[in-house]
Each structure stands twice: as C-alpha cells, then as structure tokens.
C-alpha cells in the first residue's frame, strides 16, 4: 500500500557489527534555528535566545539547551535505524557550548552488540563536535529487530524485559 512518506531502509541486529559507524550529520546552528529550537523545546531561558545573556554565562553566544543538544542525536539515530527500531536508554554529558553560528558534527559508532532480557541491543557511542572540541558524549542503547522477526518493533516492560 502506498504511503505519504517513503519508508527508509531498515537496520537489523543480525547485520550490524561492533565498530560500525553510523552516518554522521552536520547541523548549522543559525540564530533562526536557535530561536525555533527554544520554542520547540518550550525552554525560553534567555541563555538560548539572547547573545548578551549567553556570553555572560561564559558561552560564545546564545547556546543550545541540553534537550536541543539531544535532538541532534535523535536525528542521527532515527535517520539510520529505520522504523522498527527503538531507543531504550540514553546517557549524555555536555562538554562544550553549542553556540549560535556554529556547525555541530554528530556521529556514532556501535560500541557493543548484545542480547539482554530478550532484546537485541546495540550501544551506540555518540559524539557531537563543536568547532573547538568534543561538545557532547554519551551512549544511546538501541533495540533492533532481527531477521527472524523483520517487522517486530521491540517492546519491553517497566523492568526492561522484552514483552
């Protein structure tokens, strides 16, 4: 059946390996995008839309709020994984301001491939680079479908066990 949007290629647990890199994305942080991001995240602190306030806090300009920094990772992961994969957990630490006017490079690599509680998982080691240095690091734990169950989007309960 035809759909309004095309369905992207699917990544299956069977087909990935530790060390594989996922496609990276460069994000241009224009002032317009910063303002839209502040509204999109409902975070209206002037740190994220006011150059003077951002600089007073030690940044080079207004800078992305942590939830917006996390959005960059979601874009990269969701572009790659297809429609039948689900993120189970994310851990991140911000190490540099993501300032207006900068280009942020985001990429990831499969650091671990394993099975746990009936789920087929990979740990993606993620990294955002600002023009100066590493801006954010962490891990996205992604549950993937398998070749044995091609359209089985992983589900789990409150204890993290497949259901």
């Amino acid at each position, binding site marked *: *059946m035809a*759909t*309004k*949007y*095309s*369905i*992207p290629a699917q990544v299956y647990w069977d087909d990935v390996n530790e060390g594989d890199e996922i496609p990276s994305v460069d*994000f241009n942080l224009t002032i317009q*995008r910063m303002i*839209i*991001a502040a*509204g*999109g*995240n*409902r*975070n*209206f*602190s*002037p*740190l994220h839309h006011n150059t003077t*306030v951002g600089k*007073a*806090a030690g940044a080079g300009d207004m800078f992305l*709020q*942590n*939830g*917006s920094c*996390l*959005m*960059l*990772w*979601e*874009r990269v992961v*969701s*572009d790659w*994984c*297809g*429609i*039948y994969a*689900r*993120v*189970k*957990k*994310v*851990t*991140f*630490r*911000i190490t540099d301001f993501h300032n207006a006017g900068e280009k942020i490079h985001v990429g990831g690599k499969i650091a671990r491939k394993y099975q746990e509680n009936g789920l087929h998982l990979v740990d993606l080691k993620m990294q955002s680079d600002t023009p100066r240095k590493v801006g954010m690091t*962490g891990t996205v734990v992604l549950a993937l479908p398998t070749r044995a169950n091609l*359209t*089985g*989007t992983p*589900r*789990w*309960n*409150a204890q*993290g066990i497949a259901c």
Partner: protein
Amino acid sequence: MPASDSKAASRKRGPKGESKYTWDDTIAAIGKDYSGGKILVADETIDESSLARYCEIFEFGNPIFWDDEIAQRAGYRAQVAPWASIKDTFSYGGSWRPGEPTRFPLDMDKDARGANAVRVPTEGDPPMPPVSTTFFTDMTIEFFEPVCKGDNISVMGRRLASVSPKVTSVGEGAFISFASEYVNQRGELVARATQGSYTYNPKKKA
C-alpha cells in the same frame, strides 16, 4: 494546592542552602523525595501539529514521527513522539495563569531566567551549605512505553539520587542528581530520567 499555585512555587529558583548544613547532610538525604508529592501534568496533549513543529527544527525525517499509517505498521498506536521531546516539550507545565504577575518585567535580568521554566515538580531542596550557582552536567533517560499522538504526559517525583562534593576549576560545591518519572494518561511509565548538575560557589577572581 491548585495547579497554578503549584506551578508558581515550582518556579522559585536562585541561591540556596544554609550555613548550618554541610555536604554530609546532603549525602544523608539521598533517596528522599523533593517533589512535595505533586504531579506536574503537561499542558499539551500531543497532536499532529506539535509533532510537526518539533520535528521541523532539526529535520527529523523518519516517517514514524509524521505518519499514522507507517507508525501503526511499526506497531505503534499513532504517530510517535521523538524520545528527546518527552523530558522537555511534552512535559512542559505552562508558564503563566490568570492572576499571576507578568513574566516579562523590563528589569528582568539573567538571574530571573530560572523563573521561565517548569519541568519537574519541586518543593524545597535537600539540606546543603549555601551555594549561588548551578549548571546542568549530565543526564540518563530510560524509555519504556512509547509516547504517541494523543498522549498527555505527567511528571512525578524528584528523588535525590546522588551527591558528590568536589572542588572544580570553576568553584567549590557538589555534583548532585535528581530522578523523576514520566507517565502517560493511563498511568503507564514512559520514561525515567536522572539529571545531574553542579551546584557551587564560583571561585573569587584574583
């Protein structure tokens, strides 16, 4: 407490702590809840427009965020809310209600910035020595039941999860984290987040 009063109370931020306390008192409070038992119900029920506005920002192209039919094909109830949106956008408790003073006084300075956001139900802080400044450091979010179009998120709990006193290059204070849970309108757990911050007194400039 009426919802609007609860939100106003949640917005009070700024310097905190008392000189009669040490970081040992803070450590002794690990595990205690500082939400006052309140539940913060998000203003917004997730809809097609709010999902589109969110996904446009960084150009999320995965169709599960845009199309009911594709989302349902993948086993979801409806269009999926991006996981990065749960903690902020779709748990936002609103910013102003009738009867409250303006949020936009012309003399508002940077110290008033914390008054703009309601994110987690808050009532008081753990006992701690006086500190003037706090910034975000790290976060862990676990996801459970998917969040989809039509859902309405509530945030509950603000449990002190960890305390690590430390002198850093910017000052003297402690790394502190609080844990909260996010549930949907059926009471199903959708996420559990632990947010860390460094709360401290900046070094005096020579």
